[in-house]
Each structure stands twice: as C-alpha cells, then as structure tokens.
C-alpha cells in the first residue's frame, strides 16, 4: 500500500486518499485521478516554448508507481487526460499503456479532451460523458451538470484544481492543493505535474484534506 495514505469514508465507501493526488477505492480496485494534462509540455514545446519535457515522463511514472503499489484493475480519469491537440506525447502515453494489458482505463471527457476518437481507441480507453459507479456519479466539471435536482448519486469531479489558503499566527499563510468533499460532491486535486491550482473557500461542514508534500492532513483536525 502507499505510505501516508489517508483513509476517508464517503457514502460508506472507504477511500484511500493518496499524497500523489489520487484516490484509491479499494473495494472496487479502482484508482481515481483527475486533470492529468498529458501532452501539456509537448504542446508548449511544439509551439516554441521550452518547457522541460520530463514533465510528461514523470506524470506517467507517478501513475505507474501508484498502479504497482495498489491492486488497481480500473483506472478512472475524471477529465482532462490530454491537454490539447494531438502531439507525440500522446504516443508516449499509448506506449506506456501497452505495459498494462489487464488494466481497464476509463475517461470521463473533460473540456481539454479534444482528441479524435481513434486516438482514444489506440489507447484502449473507454469514453464517458458522465459515468456512474454506484453510489457515485463521476463527471469532469460539476458546474456543467444540468440543474437537475434529480442527481441522486454523490458526485465526484475534477476540473478546478482545488487548493486552500491556510493562515496562522504571525501573519503566516500558505496555499496547498487539497481533496474537497461537501455533502453532495467531491473534487479531486489535479494529478498533472505542470498544472496550477485554484483557491476554494470551504464551508464548515465540508471535509478538506490538504496535501503537504508527502503527507495528507485533514484540515478539519488542524487547530480548529
């Protein structure tokens, strides 16, 4: 198992929150990640902006690490798997994929996922607009959901790259990425290495888990 994984119960399901910014759902042998933005460094480089290309490699290495340390059979990506138009880093992903014959990979399409269908087929990826794995509804951007109150399932989503602002005495403050769970929905941090964050302002009843380097801390337990 992954060191420093933090257990967390959502809808009576035990989730392991991982400091690598992923969720391992043990019962279903499912690894949940959001916002990988594979190909982002390639997109920049192709346009003459010299981002180090190791960024992409390290995203894939992190994914390999998590899969090898868990019993993942199903990798579910909550959108923004690939950053933009096709570039060779997609092939890098497809090549990586070849090492995992038995692994099932599903993608809930995000706003950045604009590749042709056959590219996804080449990577043996199941595509979903939204996806239900009871008791959850998986989407990319929960604000894109139609305002139907009929959503009965608890929603898990990505898209906003959540982070929280912490403050302490002596005018200290810092911004750290987090997992966020309200009564109706949860938001995963961005998995990709070359992605920014957006500061959210949680309510008191919300559960927030902060990623501090290689540890996960429940914000509800710290100094409150």
């Amino acid at each position, binding site marked *: 198992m992954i060191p420093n994984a933090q257990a967390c119960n959502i809808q009576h399901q035990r989730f392991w929150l991982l400091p690598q910014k992923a969720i391992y759902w043990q019962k279903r042998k499912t690894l949940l990640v959001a916002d990988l933005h594979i190909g*982002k*460094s*390639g*997109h*920049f*480089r*192709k*346009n*003459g*902006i*010299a*981002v*180090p*290309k*190791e*960024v*992409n490699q*390290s995203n894939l290495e992190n994914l390999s690490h998590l899969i090898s340390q868990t019993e993942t059979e199903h990798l579910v990506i909550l959108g923004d798997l690939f*950053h*933009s*138009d096709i*570039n*060779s*880093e997609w*092939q*890098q992903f497809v090549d990586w994929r070849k090492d995992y014959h038995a692994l099932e990979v599903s993608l809930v399409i995000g706003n*950045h996922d604009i590749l042709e269908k056959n590219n996804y087929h080449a990577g043996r990826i199941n595509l979903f607009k939204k996806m239900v794995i009871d008791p959850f509804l998986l989407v990319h951007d929960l604000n894109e959901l139609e305002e139907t109150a009929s959503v009965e399932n608890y929603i898990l989503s990505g898209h906003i790259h959540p982070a*929280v*602002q*912490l*403050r*302490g*005495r*002596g*005018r*200290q*403050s*810092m911004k*750290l990425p987090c997992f966020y769970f309200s009564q109706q929905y949860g938001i995963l941090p961005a998995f990709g*290495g*070359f*992605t*920014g964050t957006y500061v959210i*302002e*949680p*309510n*008191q009843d919300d559960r*927030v888990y*902060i990623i*501090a*380097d290689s*540890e996960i*801390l429940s*914000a*509800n337990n*710290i*100094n*409150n």
Partner: protein
Amino acid sequence: MSSKGHQKIEHWFTEQGWEPFDYQRQVWEAYLSGKNGLLNAPTGSGKTYALWMPVLINWINEHPETYKELADNGLQLLWITPLRALARDIEQALQQVVDDLEIPWQVARRTGDISSHKKQKLKEQMPEALITTPESLHIMMAQEGYPGYFENLDSVVADEWHELLGSKRGTQTELGLSRLKHLRPHLNIWGISATIGNLQEAQDVLLGADASNENAEIIKADVEKKLEARSVLPDDVEKFPWSGHLGTKLLPKVLPIIEESRSTLIFCNTRSQSEIWFQRLLEAKPELAGTIALHHGSLSKEIRRWVEQSLHEGKLKAVVCTSSLDLGVDFAPVETVVQVGSPKGVARFLQRAGRSGHQPGSTSTIHFVPTNALELIEAAALKTAATQKIALESRDPILKPYDVLIQYLITLGISDGFEPEHLYKEIKSTFAYQTLNEKEWSWILDFITTGGQSLSSYDEYSKVIDEDGIYKVVDKKIIRRHRMSIGTIASDTMMRVKYLNGGYLGSIEEWFIASLNTGDTFWFAGRSLELVRTKEMTAYVRRANTSKAKVPSWMGGRMSLSSNMSALLRHKMHEAIEGSTDDIELKTIQPILDVQADWSTLPDEDELVIEKTISDEGHHLFFYPFEGRYVHEGMSALVAYRISQLTPITFSIAMNDYGFELLSDKEIPIEEALENDLFSDANLIEDIFSSLNDTELAKRRFRGICQIAGLIFQGFPGQKKASRHLQSSSGLFFDVFDQYEPDNLLLQQAYDEVLSYQLDEVRLRKALRRIQSQQITLKQTERFTPFAFPIMVDRLRERLSSESLVDRVQRMQLQLEEHV
C-alpha cells in the same frame, strides 16, 4: 569653420533671435570631425538642436548646390527615445528646422502607437529622420529585408539615455546598435543624458565594448539653474500620521502654492496617488474645476496630449502627474513644482525641480510634501542634497540578461535569419554581453533550437531551425506571437477603458477591473465612472455622479532609497540627536523623535537599533539599518535565514526604507543569533542563496524574464481564447525548471537579478560591514514605536521558514467561508 552648412544653421539661429550655446557648437564640431560621444544636458536646454544641426550641416556641405532639391534620400538619422510621448515633440522640432531651411527632408515617428497604415507607408519610403523607441527598432529588425531600411543611415542619437541605461530596454538598444554598426561601419553614435554619477560608463555602454575612447567625447552643457527647495510642514506634528503614503492631510497647504504660481506641476509617486490628489483638490476647491488636470502613463494619448497642449498654452493652473511628466519638452508657464512623498533619490528630485522656472535667470522652485512624519527627515536630507550638490546617483547598466538576448535572436530569426558564429562576435561587442562565453552562447542556441534538451523520439520542439547555416524561424504562429511580444518588457495585462459611445480614456490592469462588478464605480482619469460591461479586453463605462468610488491601484515596483539618500538620512538622524540641526523639518519632527527616544531609542549614525515587541500577532523584531528597501529585502532574508538555522521557525517579513521586521508565532532567539555573528558578511552569497530558495523573491523576478524570453504569452488583443492552451503562470514555469532543469540559464538569471539588482549585493555587503563596526542596541519595547509602526502595517510580506511543511500546517487554520 564657416562652411556653407555652418552659415545656414547660424543664420537660422539668428532668425529665431537665438544665439547657439557654446556646448551646442562643441557638439557640432565633435560630430563633424567624425567623433561619437555623449552630451550631458538637462531637458529643455536645446539639446535637440545640438545633435540635429550637425546632421544638417553635414548634409548641406556634402550637397551644397542640390540640398534643396534632393528628396527621398533614405534614412539618414535614427533618433531613439525611451518614451513614445516624447516622439511627437521631437518630430515637430526637427521638422520645423528642415522646413525653415527648405530642405525637402521627411521626419517621421515609428513607435507602437502610430497607425498600421502609416507603418506601411514607412516601409515603402523611409523618411530621412526617424524617431523611434528601442522596441520599435527591434520590430523593424523583425521584418524581412530590414537591412534595406538602414542602407543610408549615417547617425543614431539615443535621447534620455540615462533613462534607458539601467533597464533592459537599454540592453535592447545596445543590441540594436550592434546590428546597425555592423550594417553601417562608419555610423555616428551619440547619446544625450541628464546628469548622473557615471557618465563615462554611460558612454561606454552606448558605444559598445569594441569602441575606442580616442574617438569619443563627453560634452557637458553648462546651463545651471538656481534651485530653491522648501518643505510643506504640518502645523501639529503630533497629529500627523506615522505611516501612510497619500499626503492629502497637507493638501490645504498646497492650495495657496497653486494659487500663487502661474502654473504648478504636482508630482505623485504612483498613478493611484495622482488620481486621489486630483479628486481631493477638486473637493477642497471646486472652483479649480477646468483649470487643473491629471496626467499619468495609463491615460490615453489624446488625454495626455490635451493636457500637455493646455500646459504649453498656459491654460492650466496645475497638473497632478506622475513620472509621465519627468521627461520631455519644457512647459514654459510652469513656475512651481510640488513633490508629494519621497522621491527616493536626489537625481529624481532635482530632475523634477528642473521642470519649473524657464524664464531666463529665474529659479526652479520645488515644494516637498511629506506623506508621513518620518518623511520629514527625508525632506531635510533632500534639501541638503539639492542645495549642496551632493554626488548624484549612478544608473548601473544591466549585464548579460539572457532573456533579452533570446528575444533578440528570435527577432533576427523571424526576419532574415542569422549565422551564429558571425552574430556571436557582434553580440560580444556590446557592453552588456562582452563577457558572454562560448558555453553560455551554445546553451542559448540550444534553448532556441532544441528547447534546451537533447531530442528524444517524443519531442517535437520547434522554434528556430538551421537552414544551411542560417538560423531561422519559419512557423507563422511563432512569428506572429513574437512580433506581438517584442514590446512587452514587463507589463501586466492591461484592459482598455472606453465610454459606451467609444471615447477612449486609457488602460487599467486587468485584475483591478476583474475585482469590480457591473454597476460599481471607480475613479479613473480624474472622473468617477460606472462599469457598464466588459467585453474582451475593453471595459465600457459611463460617467457616474457619485464621488464614492474605488481608486485603482496599479502594480508597480516600489522604489528604494538610493545609497546617497540613505547615508544622508543617517547623518540627519545624527544631527537630530546631537541637536546641532538648523533644519526646520527636523525641528518640526522633534516631538515624534522624542516619543521614539522615550519608548525605545533614536538610532544614531554609528548604531544599529533592534526593537523586540510582543503583540497579539506574535513576536516582532524591528531592525533599523536605514539602507533603503532593496538592501533591507536582502538583509532581512539573510537575518531570517541565519536565525532559522538556530531553531525551526517561520517568519513573515516586512520592510521599508528605514528598517525591516521579522514576525513569528514563536519567540525569536535574537540574543543567541547576535552572539553568533548575525551580521557577518562571511558566506554571504551561500546564505543569501539558501534564503532565496525559501522565499518568493526569485520566483517573482522570473515573471519578467519569462515574458521577455517568450515563455509567457499574453494572447493576441481581442482573441485571447485562440492561445488558451498555451497559458501558464511564471510560477509554474519556475517550479518545473527548478525540478527538471535546475541549470537553466533563465532560472540562474532570476537569481542573479535578485542578487545584483534587487538585493544589490555590493550595497548589502557594505551595509553589513558597516553594521559589524557599529554598536548594536537591543531594546525591549512595550508597544510599536514611531519607527516600527509604518513597517508593521505593511501588508506586502516575504516569508521564510525552516520548519517542515507538516509542522507548519498543524498550527494553521483553514480559511472558512462565513457559515451560511
């Protein structure tokens, strides 16, 4: 000397009822004998004629019979100016002379703000004299076949060179000149500079590392003006604020100054301060409406033009302005200058004072308005400096900025391409890049050709390609993006402010507009406006009737006290302690100095005072080295870092020109730190680098570098979306380079810039040596002293920590939304 050209020009002067100054004639002769050089002359002294006339004399002498007929002669003179706003005045002055002499020459501008139609016309037929900015020169060099523009070029003048010298735009100018010198080996190069501490160096930078000194001359214009500096003093200093930067408290005392003078310039240090002063002046004296105006760099050129014109014509009683009116032609009706808040340096104070009093024999008058009590000490220092001609500050040139070089290489790559070996020699001939070594050069070539890394199968990096030894950029999108970004040396994304019916008012930083809702009112261009809607990069507004409105604050570097000023300041403190002063300013502030002495102690010239206080916020330490903000930035990071090596601790750091504060939630072991040689200058660089890793300084510096080197792209005007997938913050770039490519030269540049320009390593080391020889006094105080208070209230803070992230998080609190 009486050539035909001379006669014509002397005759022209006589017709104007003028006599050329000696220095003007000196410049003519030096120029005509083929020399390059630097003219040291203040604004409004006829410096334009000093360099325009010899060009014409030369032309007339070369074509004595035909000079009135020869038209379309190609570009003869390139006139580089730092400010677009100045270009028009110069254009008019130059054009007037050739018209009077019936020389059929064209004078034109090529700056960012002329129409593309006009730019197209320039392309077809170059004028004989072209006025341009460093950026626009580079934009010309980004066009295919650009050498054709310059095939007749004889001379280049870099106007207001002191303004460009200490900036990356100066480096841009150096690079542009190195190219032009290669195209035209006999090019005459002249600079015009106000008085600064390093005129010789200014000339060396302009002429390049390959220039010979024998062929160059510095000519000083001996046109001294008398100067009178006065301070506006508060009646009751005990009620005068200890901190703050607006200064409107003394506004009632500025009204009579405006009243008594024909025309007054009121200089503010920031654009928001100028908006507020303008508004408050109108409130205090509504009958001023229509006779006072506002002038700053974010207003539209139409508005600025109108203000300048009205000033010339004597229609305005006062203009509230910023550095936007520091330079340029003189406004004859201006009799008085008011400086609100510390100008931070003697040179700037004198420059501004010089904007008044232009009648022959008249005196320049400047009134200093302190914005808080401690600025009274600065007032005393400034007056001493201004009247005793204390040595002026130097403008240090920027050395070897890799970002500017990368931008330049792409510029040449998108026009005609370049041969690396050949260009390397040319670049090394500049002052800025004379120490550029082969290793750095090949790293830069790699960076633009392969993206700085060895190619792998998954890599599709493309920017500059090698076409038979010629390095070129062929990708149309990259070419377009680069052309757009040449002009953007460090500016935030700006939004245009327009009336609904189309009238253009100026521009404001995007983040300010983003903080407003539709219907909100804000002050801009001296009027209160209601935000109606925003569309793409334009905010549409209408006039609002309320005076309750937000004032935009523009981000801008905070200036730091110059080293000359800080030395003077320490000396003034000493005089105040000794009681040997005659300065009215120091006498006025005495009650506050008494409070400081009573609650703590007054820092003497040879003493470093440290105050220790506890408040609800935690444990505070205040240090008062009086070295200026920049040195304090470095010293505070250094001191915080050294203390943090004694015990795991986290600091929040604030600073101003007088001192700095370390604040922690834990007790700070200052006594132990002092015993351990806290202010030693041994291991300075190592310790500073370690402290930089723990603060945001280098990261912030990286922002500008990213922009210039073309990593951050702000998008095409009006179509931001097309490049959405190429948007990233400089902070992210910093992190990925730091992680995967720590020896990236741009990253190294960020650290170097922090070290040499921001923290000013040389000054920092000097300051530390000074402190080591001084007495250190540690005082426990009950409350925040008059010196501590202004630092304590500063919200702009650095952080430094030696604790683990997890330990810190444990003691923090999540910011929760108000529970609904």
